[in-house]
């Protein structure tokens, strides 16, 4: 047993020294949960192209901000919105000028029943459902965008009593996919497969009904000295990364 532990440590030492010899670094990245799938794929491509590794932690953007304000160890932060990175910029925890929009979210009104949501979202006005799920507008950008759509369609008074609020879009998706809520607003990225809505029925909400859901990335001061951190930011703008981002139902800025 003692031998096993010693040899394990020797191996670990060997791996650490080997990786530092060829200048491949590891960066610790905080990623908004809605970007889990594309980011996992991007991290693989990043490793292949640059040799650096990205260690990904997934969670809610607001929680990451609280953690960073209290000494969280992350070096790069991919937020689900623009306001949280701006907050970090203002509090001096992030490198000024490093922030940019890596993806633009698409909102979709979705039901797990086929043929239930029509292609123009008329069902919101016709009604006939008991629950409309959305992410808490106070916490989640997709929830705030959904509120805007409902306001713009002048349906707030009739729909508000039917609201069930998910804490984030993942939970909102569970409310709808289990059929507890007949329909609701989530991110296209959650239900897309090969560029199409994989199951049920949905209405991709036109961009003019809400302000764009900008997802910004920012380099944190903790990552300024680690070459892998700025390299990841740069990699996010590469055609390879952007193709992955598009595949998962996001738009690219510009």
């Amino acid at each position, binding site marked *: 047993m003692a031998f096993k532990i010693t040899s394990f440590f020797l191996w670990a030492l060997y791996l650490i020294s080997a990786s530092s010899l060829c200048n491949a670094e590891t960066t610790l990245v905080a990623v908004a949960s809605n970007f889990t799938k594309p980011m996992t794929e991007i991290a693989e491509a990043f490793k292949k192209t640059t040799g650096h590794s990205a260690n990904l932690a997934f969670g*809610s953007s*607001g*929680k990451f*901000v*609280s953690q960073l304000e209290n000494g969280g160890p992350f070096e790069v932060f991919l937020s689900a919105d623009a306001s949280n990175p701006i*907050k970090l910029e203002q509090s001096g925890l992030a490198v000024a000028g490093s922030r940019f929009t890596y993806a633009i979210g698409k909102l979709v009104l979705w039901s797990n029943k086929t043929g239930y949501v029509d292609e123009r979202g008329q069902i919101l006005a016709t009604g006939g459902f*008991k*629950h409309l*799920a959305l992410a*808490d507008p*106070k*916490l989640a950008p997709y929830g705030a965008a959904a509120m805007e759509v409902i306001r713009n369609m002048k349906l707030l008074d009739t729909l508000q009593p039917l*609201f*069930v*609020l*998910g*804490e984030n879009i993942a*939970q909102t998706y*569970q*409310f709808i996919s*289990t*059929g*507890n*809520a007949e329909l609701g607003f989530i991110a296209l990225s959650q239900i897309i497969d090969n560029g199409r809505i994989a199951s049920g029925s949905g209405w991709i909400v036109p961009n003019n009904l809400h302000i764009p859901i900008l997802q910004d990335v920012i380099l944190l001061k903790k990552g300024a000295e680690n070459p892998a951190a700025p390299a990841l930011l740069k990699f996010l703008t590469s055609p390879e990364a952007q193709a992955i981002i598009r595949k998962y139902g996001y738009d690219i800025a510009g």
Partner: protein
Amino acid sequence: MLSPADIATLWLTFKVAGISTLFMLLFGTPLAWWLARTESRWKGICNAVVALPLVLPPTVLGFYLLVLMGPAGVIGKFTTWLGLGTLPFTFAGLVVASVLYSLPFVVQPLQTAFAMIGARPLEAAATLRASPFDTFFSIVVPLAKPGFLTAAILGFAHTVGEFGVVLMVGGNIPDKTRVVSVQIYNHVEALEYSEAHWLAGCLLLFSFSVLLVLYTALKTHPVAHQSLK
């Protein structure tokens, strides 16, 4: 300070916890009695099932309740057949989830209290021709009073503090399913720290008082003191 919305969540929380505790005592008492007395080979399985919510992460339990109580789930189909509709996003659904989640905190102190009474007082009562019901209410309940107290307070307090389950099953609806723990979480997520501190302070004060009352009351009851160890 506390906003009216915060106060509404406190009130709703105590309502859910109070009603859930009543149901837990109602179901938990016969269950604990059976578990304390039976020699059945099912005893081990039943004990394990009752204790499961202690092990399962609350969001996992909440997710399965969401699936089971939903329109495609077994419980959901049953409640729809009864004409009650489905339970998620309702006050009743929250009570059902809370009862399942906090039941071990009620059953286990009761079971210990019943077991400690032993067979002798019951046999003595039987020789005096007391019916089982009479024995239960005249002998067992007074002797197990500290157990009932512990069970009620722990069940109530644990329901007040529950978070993961209500988050999954509740849907965060004001005055219906938005309880205090969810509200604190929302405040923190929205970076409204002072509101979160106030509400969390209230909850902390409450929990401390409950436990203080419990332990002071139990000091005078050697039997129950044993059962908490």
